[in-house]
C-alpha cells in the first residue's frame, strides 16, 4: 500500500528562505508521487512548528514524513521524537538537508538552489517510501567493569565505580598497582607527597570489597560486546604465597642474582626476587622468572639448581613450581588505562644517554628525590655519588621534533621539570639548576605561578634553545646549547643532566588495541570517538579510555579523565538494559550462500556463521551499521535496514537524472 507522505519545509528564518523559494518548493513537493501534504513554516523546530508537524500527521493520517531543514545532525532527533509522540514510528521520518548542503552553499542562485532543494526532498521521499517502522534493540547489561591498567587512572576510575556499587576487576601487568605515579616523589604545583597520596588510594583499592586486582596479568582474549564482554586474563605465576609470606626479607638477602632495578631506572640493583617498589603496599617480594637462575636454561651450570630463596624462607612461602593461570571475567564495560612509557633516552645518542652515567631521564631523577629511593632522597650523581653543583634539565627531549622523533608535546614536562629543579634547589642551596626549554607551557591552575616562583625566588636559570649535544668533559659534562633570546652559543659545565623524555604509549599497546578492538592514532595513542564531545569513548562501544594511553597528560588531567570515564560507565549502568539503534545489517536467509566474506570484512566481529543453517547471522548488539558487509556480499544477501540497496537505487535515480521540473 502506498504511503501517505507529508513534506514540511523550514525557512529557518531567512537561512533557507533567502536562497530557496520555499513556496515554490512546497508547491513542487506537493506534486511529487505519494505526497498528500506539503507546506512551509518559518521555524519548523520551534514548538509551534513541531506542533504543526504533529497535528498534520494526526489529521492527514501520514505514514511517512520528510522534514526539509538543517542537517540531520541538528534536528533529526527532535522531529523523530515529535513524530513518535503522535504515534508515527519515528523511523518513518527522514530529514532532507536543505540548509547546510543547499541554501547556505548556493546563496546567489535561487532558481538552482530551489531546484536542488526539491530534488533533495524527492530523493528523501523515495527513501521514506520504503522505510520500515522499527523498534530499538534491547541488549543485556552486566554491571561489572574491567579496568586494564592499575596506574592512577585505573585506580581512580575503579574506586569511583566500586563506590557507586559496581564490581570492578583491575588487570595490572606489573607485580603491583600504582603505575608510574609510584616512582614519583612529589607533585606540582603544591609539592604533595606522592607516596603518601598514592598509598591511601592503593589501600582503598586493596580493602575494597568490590575490587579484585589481578597483578602480573594481561588481557589474553577479549570476546563479546558492549554490556557483555568476556575477558580472559593471563596471570604470570607469583611464586610467593602472599598468605604465608611475612615480608621478613630473608629471600632478598640470599638471591645471588644482581640486575638493574627497572623501578629505580637502573640507579640500583636488585635480585631475581625483590620488592617491586618501596611502597608499604608492595612488601611481599616478587620473583622475576626471566632473571632467576632456577629458570635459566637447563644446559647452563645453574639451570634448575638454584633454590636459595626457597631454602631461606622460614615460612615455606615460595613455590617455584607455580604455573601461570587463566581466569575469565564477565563485564559490561572496559576501561583502557594503559598508561605510558618514557621514550627511551637511547634514541638521543647526541645527549650520551645510556653511555654517560650522569645523563639520566626524568623518572630516574624522581627516584633520586624519593626518601625511600636508591639514594634515600639525596640528589647524588650516579657516577660517583657526589652532590651535583650544576644540573642541566633539558625539556622537549624527543617531543616537538616531527622530523626525528615525536611531533606532539608531552604536556607534563614543563611542569615536572620546574618542580624537579625547584626541589633540587631546595635541597642543594649552593647548586645551580639550568633549564633548557623551547617554550614554557604552564596552562593550568597555579601552574604559571609555580614556574614564576622557581624563576624569581629560587633562581632557576631558564635558557631558551635546544641542546645540541652533551659530551664528557674533564670531570664534568659539557652541555652545548644556544640561548636564542640573546643569540649566543652557550656551553655549560654540568655535573648532572636530566632529560625530560617524551611520553609514548605503553609498549605492546598495538597488540592490545587489536585485541580490544580499539583504534589507535599515528603515534599509537588510543583514539577517542570525538575529541570534544566523546573524549573518553573508544571506537568500540563499551570500551572507555583514561589516562596517558589516550594522550600524554599530568596526574591532574589523568584523574579528571579517569573520573569522567567512571561517570560515563555509571550513566550506562543506570539502565537495566542497553538500547541499540536498529539501523543495522540484516540477512536474507534464502539468499545467503554461507561464503563468510562478511565475517572477514566486519570490523566488529558482528557476523557469525550459524553452524547449523550455514547462514551468516548478524549479532544485533555488536553491529554498528557501517554497511561494509553489504557492499562486500557477492550475493546481495544482506541489507542495511532502512538503507537498502533498493532505497539507494531509487534515490540515485532521482539525483542522477535531471528530472526536476523547477
Amino acid at each position, binding site marked *: 500500500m502506498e504511503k501517505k507522505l507529508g513534506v514540511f519545509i523550514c525557512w529557518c528564518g531567512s537561512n533557507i528562505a533567502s536562497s530557496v523559494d520555499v513556496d515554490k518548493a512546497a508547491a513542487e513537493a506537493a506534486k511529487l508521487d505519494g505526497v498528500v501534504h506539503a507546506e512551509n513554516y518559518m521555524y519548523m523546530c520551534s514548538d509551534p512548528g513541531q506542533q504543526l508537524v504533529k497535528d498534520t500527521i494526526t489529521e492527514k493520517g501520514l505514514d511517512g514524513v520528510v522534514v526539509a531543514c538543517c*542537517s540531520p545532525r541538528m534536528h533529526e532527533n527532535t522531529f523523530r521524537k515529535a513524530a513518535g509522540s503522535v504515534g508515527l514510528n519515528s523511523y518513518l521520518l527522514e530529514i532532507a538537508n536543505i540548509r547546510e548542503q543547499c541554501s547556505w552553499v548556493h546563496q546567489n542562485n535561487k532558481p538552482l538552489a530551489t531546484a536542488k532543494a526539491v530534488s533533495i526532498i524527492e530523493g528523501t521521499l523515495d527513501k521514506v517510501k520504503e522505510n520500515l517502522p522499527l523498534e530499538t534493540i534491547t541488549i543485556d547489561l552486566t554491571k561489572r567493569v574491567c579496568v586494564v591498567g592499575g596506574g592512577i587512572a585505573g585506580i581512580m576510575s575503579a574506586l569511583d565505580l566500586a563506590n557507586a556499587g559496581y564490581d570492578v576487576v583491575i588487570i595490572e601487568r606489573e607485580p603491583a598497582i600504582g603505575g608510574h605515579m609510584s616512582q614519583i616523589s612529589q607533585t606540582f604545583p603544591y609539592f604533595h607527597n606522592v607516596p603518601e597520596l598514592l598509598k591511601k588510594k592503593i589501600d582503598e583499592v586493596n580493602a575494597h570489597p568490590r575490587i579484585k586486582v589481578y597483578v602480573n596479568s594481561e588481557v589474553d582474549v577479549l570476546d563479546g560486546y558492549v554490556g557483555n564482554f568476556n575477558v580472559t586474563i593471563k596471570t604470570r605465576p607469583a611464586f610467593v604465597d602472599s598468605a604465608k609470606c611475612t615480608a621478613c626479607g630473608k629471600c632478598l638477602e640470599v638471591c645471588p642474582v644482581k640486575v638493574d632495578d627497572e623501578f629505580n631506572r637502573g640507579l640500583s640493583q636488585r635480585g631475581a626476587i625483590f620488592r617491586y617498589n618501596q611502597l608499604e603496599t608492595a612488601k611481599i617480594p616478587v620473583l622475576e622468572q626471566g632473571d632467576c637462575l632456577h629458570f635459566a636454561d637447563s644446559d647452563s651450570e645453574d639451570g634448575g639448581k638454584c633454590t636459595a630463596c626457597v631454602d631461606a624462607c622460614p615460612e615455606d612461602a615460595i613455590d617455584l613450581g607455580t604455573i601461570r593461570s587463566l581466569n575469565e571475567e564477565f563485564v559490561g564495560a572496559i576501561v583502557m588505562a594503559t598508561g605510558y612509557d618514557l621514550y627511551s633516552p637511547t634514541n638521543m645518542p647526541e645527549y650520551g644517554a645510556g653511555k654517560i652515567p650522569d645523563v639520566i631521564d626524568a623518572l630516574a631523577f624522581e627516584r633520586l628525590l624519593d626518601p625511600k629511593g636508591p639514594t634515600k632522597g639525596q640528589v647524588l650523581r650516579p657516577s660517583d655519588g657526589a652532590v651535583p653543583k650544576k644540573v642541566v634539565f633539558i625539556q622537549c627531549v624527543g617531543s616537538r621534533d616531527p622530523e626525528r622523533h615525536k611531533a606532539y608535546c608531552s604536556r607534563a614536562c614543563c611542569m615536572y621539570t620546574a618542580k624537579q629543579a625547584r626541589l633540587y634547589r631546595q635541597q642543594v642551596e649552593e647548586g645551580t639548576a639550568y633549564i633548557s626549554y623551547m617554550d614554557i607551557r604552564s596552562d593550568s591552575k597555579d601552574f604559571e605561578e609555580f614556574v614564576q616562583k622557581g624563576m624569581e625566588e629560587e633562581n632557576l636559570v631558564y635558557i631558551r634553545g635546544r641542546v645540541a649535544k652533551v659530551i664528557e668533559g674533564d670531570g664534568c659534562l659539557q652541555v652545548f646549547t644556544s640561548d636564542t633570546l640573546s643569540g649566543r652559543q652557550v656551553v655549560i659545565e654540568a655535573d648532572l643532566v636530566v632529560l625530560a623524555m617524551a611520553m609514548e604509549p605503553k609498549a605492546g599497546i598495538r597488540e592490545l588495541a587489536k585485541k580490544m578492538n580499539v583504534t589507535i592514532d599515528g603515534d599509537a595513542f588510543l583514539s577517542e570517538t570525538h575529541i570534544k564531545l566523546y573524549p573518553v569513548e573508544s571506537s568500540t562501544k563499551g570500551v572507555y579510555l583514561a589516562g596517558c594511553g589516550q594522550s600524554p597528560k599530568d596526574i591532574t588531567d589523568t584523574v579528571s579523565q579517569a573520573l569522567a570515564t567512571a561517570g560515563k560507565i555509571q550513566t550506562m549502568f543506570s539502565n537495566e538494559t542497553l538500547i541499540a539503534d536498529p539501523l543495522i545489517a540484516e540477512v536474507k536467509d534464502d539468499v545467503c550462500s554461507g561464503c563468510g566474506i562478511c565475517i572477514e570484512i566486519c570490523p566488529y566481529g558482528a557476523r557469525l556463521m550459524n553452524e547449523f543453517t550455514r547462514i551468516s547471522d548478524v549479532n544485533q548488539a555488536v553491529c554498528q551499521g*557501517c554497511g561494509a558487509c553489504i557492499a562486500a556480499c557477492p550475493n546481495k544477501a544482506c541489507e542495511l535496514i532502512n538503507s537498502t540497496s533498493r532505497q539507494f537505487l531509487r534515490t540515485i535515480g532521482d*539525483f542522477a537524472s535531471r528530472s526536476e521540473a523547477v
Partner: protein
Amino acid sequence: MADSKFEPRIVGFLCHWCTYTGADLAGTTRQQYPAGIRIIHLMCSGAIDVVYVLKSLLDGADGVLIGGCHPGDCHYQTGNLKARRRIALLRSVMNTLGLDEDRVWLRWISASEGRLFAETIREYDGALQEQGPNPLAGEWDL
C-alpha cells in the same frame, strides 16, 4: 536546455563521520560551490557498492564523488581502505571498457575540512565541464 551552460551533475556518496559532516561544515561556513551536486548519506565509505556508482552514471550523472575519512581515521577502522580498493578496481575496469575513469572520484575529506569539500566540488565541477556531459546518460532512455 541545449544551448544553456553545461552544469555537470555530480552524485556524492559521503560517509557519515567525515565527509558528510565536512559538507555540513562547508554550509555552516558559507563556502559556495556549484549546485549540481546531490549528496547521498552513507554510514561509511566502505559501504559503497560499485552498483551505486554505475547506476548513477547510467542514470545521467556526469560524475560520482565518494567521500570518506582520511586513511587511519575511519570510524569503522578500515572502511575507507575497503572503499579505496574497490574504487581503484572499478576505475581500472572502467578504463578497460573504454569509460572515463575520472567520472568517479574518491576523496578523503574530514569533518573539519569544509573548505576542502567546497574546493573539491569546484574542482570536480571544473574537470567535468572540460570532459563534457556523460555520454552514457542518454543511451539508456527508453
